[in-house]
């Protein structure tokens, strides 16, 4: 079924296309995203604005359109990222669990192949993730992180742009049922 590119909302549940990905794509993409987050900015400091695990947590639940799957994926990737950080385990887990859940929910209502939907969702969830992480740090860990809204907005835009290209690449790996 072909969807008009100008349509952003799905009219009926019949239009919900079930999209699946090979398991190795999930595994490899998650691993590379976390490694990228750890090692690449150490060499190329200008790339430290990228939040590759978050982009995956936005993309896959958005494609799956399944809340439980999205929640689980977000939780797993967040916890994996936590294990490689110096913060207590659960900070990224909680934030990304929420992101996974909400993106899967949004995916049920929006046409997820549209570049504008993807751009706005990445921009929104990037900000959400950053704010929620800031809240957790300040409230639970009592670590006074600085929240630079301007910097956050710019980073969100850049991640959205990168996300569009990344999602297009990942689109090639999906297998339709």
């Amino acid at each position, binding site marked *: 079924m072909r969807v008009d590119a100008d349509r952003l909302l799905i009219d009926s549940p019949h239009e919900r296309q079930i999209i699946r990905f090979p398991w190795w794509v999930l595994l490899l993409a998650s*691993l590379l995203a*976390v*490694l990228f987050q*750890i*090692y690449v900015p150490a*060499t190329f400091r200008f790339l430290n604005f990228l939040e590759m695990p978050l982009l995956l947590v936005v993309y896959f639940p958005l494609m799956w359109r*399944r*809340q*439980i799957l999205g*929640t*689980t994926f977000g*939780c797993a990737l967040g*916890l*994996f990222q936590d*294990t*490689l950080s110096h913060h*207590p*385990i*659960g*900070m990224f*887990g*909680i934030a990304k*669990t*929420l992101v996974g*859940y909400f993106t*899967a*929910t949004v995916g049920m209502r929006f046409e997820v192949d549209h570049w504008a939907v993807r751009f706005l969702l990445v921009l929104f969830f990037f900000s959400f993730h950053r704010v929620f992480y800031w809240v957790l740090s300040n409230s*639970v*860990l009592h670590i006074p992180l600085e929240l630079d809204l301007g910097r956050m907005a710019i980073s969100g835009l850049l991640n959205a742009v990168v996300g569009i290209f990344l999602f297009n690449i990942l689109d090639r790996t999906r297998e339709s049922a």
Partner: protein
Amino acid sequence: METLLTRYRGVLVLVLILAAQLVMLGVQVRNQQDIRLVRVWAISAVTPLAMILDGAKSAVTDAVEGYVDLRSARKDNVALKSQVDTLRRQNEFLKAELATADRADRLLEFKQRIPSRTIAARIIGTNAAPSSQVVFVDRGASDGLVSGMAVINGTGVVGRVLDAYPNTAQVMLITDPSFAMGVISQKGRVVGTLRGLGQRRCMVDYVESHLVVEKDEWFYSSGDDRVFPRGLPIGPVVSVAQGNAFQDIYVEPAAMQRGLDEVLIVLEAVHQTVPPVATEAIPPLAPAPEKTLEELPEVSMGETSATPPAEGAAGANAAGVPPGSNATGTATPAQTHTPPARSPLATDADRLLDRYRRIGQSQNHPFGGGSVGTPPPDFNRAPAPPGAGTAATDATTTEPAVAGPAVTGTAATGTGTTGATLPGVRGTGAPAAAPAGASANTTIRSTPAPSPAAPVKAAPVKTAAPNQR
């Protein structure tokens, strides 16, 4: 209830997961305790892949950097090559300039060392004829050049001015086949005539077979030709061979070895001494000047000649004793470095002229004063003794002392080669130079005059007695 759970299954899972994580987080924060085991597992799982990625990254980075370096190296290479070319051209130019400056320095030094008055000139062209050894210099008649002037450089004789034009002059090189000049060897004081052969070497002609000329011995200008001042180095002997009547002696002109660029043209020639044999490969130029040819007094009837002491040692030279040694072969500084007497009759031509003058004096024959039909004096008769001249006669200058190389035991040879260049003598048909102690009846065979030297007009040299006859 089941429907409710099914409907809110997602939310329920979310709440459960969040609650579990919050509990875990709370426990960690409260106990200040990390879940180390999980981190170890995660890091252990990630590290190999990270190392592989790091290796790949290093390889890619190195390759990129190598490529970038290679590109920059190529650029640098091109730029450096261009720079090297530029610097090489500059270097060649500067070398040429330096060489010119060196030559100019040497020429200037040489000019200051020699007593003759000279003018520097640059060679600006060669003759169109391939076989001709003639060059053009950038000095001409406006600079005082006249044909016949000697041309030298720091290492020796170059040639002579063939013709002088307003702003340029033709110089016949020493290697030209029509070039000739009087030369004298350094050791044996053997006099001969140097002739060009059209090649690198020149030939010293008219040296009799019994005279000793060694290889590597230097020849100097003898001054007998009245063109080149005495004492200018010509070059070393490169080969000596016995010919039929005369030796075949070949000399390599030193002035022509390094190419020609700048030269000196002798405006006023001053005789120098032929230096004694030294150990240097290139013999030094004689430091002490004698009198300029212009300073030479006009030889007139009644004047006597003085003989340079250096020539007096030629008797020993003829016996194979090098100059600067006495008859026993023991070198004496006084003999080695004895400066020659300051004689106005420094050349064989002067002495010849003086001899003719005394012959005429003894036979009461006034040269140039007799009427038409007056018989010439008998040149075979012995001349009047030197003291019989004017009051200015120098008693110390006796002819036997004039035992010069060409004269020493060379009665048959004489020095007609040089005498012939004298305008006043040329027409006499008389023998050249009487040998020392030769009797009046001695037959002096006049060697063929150096016909190549005939073009020499001897303009720069004010000869002593052009109108003697």
